[in-house]
């Protein structure tokens, strides 16, 4: 069965510090992967996506993610966090074999300390 795991429910970092949010997936097919961000009371905004090719992908707002097939991971990173990055982050996975059926992780809540 397909699943997406975000092991960290909540992370707190200081402004200016680096950030890494973890995402592991279990999927039998060739996955395509996404990271979304959700500000309070809002919908989800796409940060970045990976389909194929270069395993390091760049997204909006200075975020990047690296696909590691051997570890079934797609971790999100940012070198220097800004206070405005405080939000909920969701990892999602889909597969060509199932069309556009997406599966989401449970999310990681990020708090940024001034």
């Amino acid at each position, binding site marked *: 069965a397909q699943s997406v795991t975000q092991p960290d429910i909540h992370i707190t970092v200081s402004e200016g510090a680096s950030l890494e949010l973890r995402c592991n997936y279990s999927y039998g097919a060739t996955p*395509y992967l*996404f990271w*979304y961000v959700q500000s309070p*009371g*809002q*919908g*989800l*905004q*796409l940060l970045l*996506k990976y*389909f194929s090719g270069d395993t390091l992908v760049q997204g909006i707002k200075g975020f990047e993610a690296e696909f590691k097939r051997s570890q079934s991971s797609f971790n999100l990173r940012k070198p220097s966090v800004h206070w405005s990055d405080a939000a909920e982050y*969701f990892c*999602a996975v*889909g597969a*060509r074999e199932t*069309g*556009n*059926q*997406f*599966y*989401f*992780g*449970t*999310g990681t809540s990020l708090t940024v300390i001034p």
Partner: protein
Amino acid sequence: EAGVTQSPTHLIKTRGQQATLRCSPISGHTSVYWYQQALGLGLQFLLWYDEGEERNRGNFPPRFSGRQFPNYSSELNVNALELEDSALYLCASSRRENYSPLHFGNGTRLTVT
């Protein structure tokens, strides 16, 4: 380009009533997805419509239903509301092609009292 729009923004119902939530996808998008986001439970997949047909549904009881109209807009209906149906209901749309990401609306906050 207008984004995904959902209405109403907030909806308050009492237990046993019915709720109807609406979603208009981005122009050119034929697929519409519905998700339930209850507190602490992440996004739970409800329904997926494409070209007017239901393609898949999540693990929800039959009182959760919906449809997609010829203009690709969609409705989510929840019958016999229960207190635990209180949640943020998110609609997303995408193009039909594989690898097309989801674009989300801001959701409808349903409160059941």
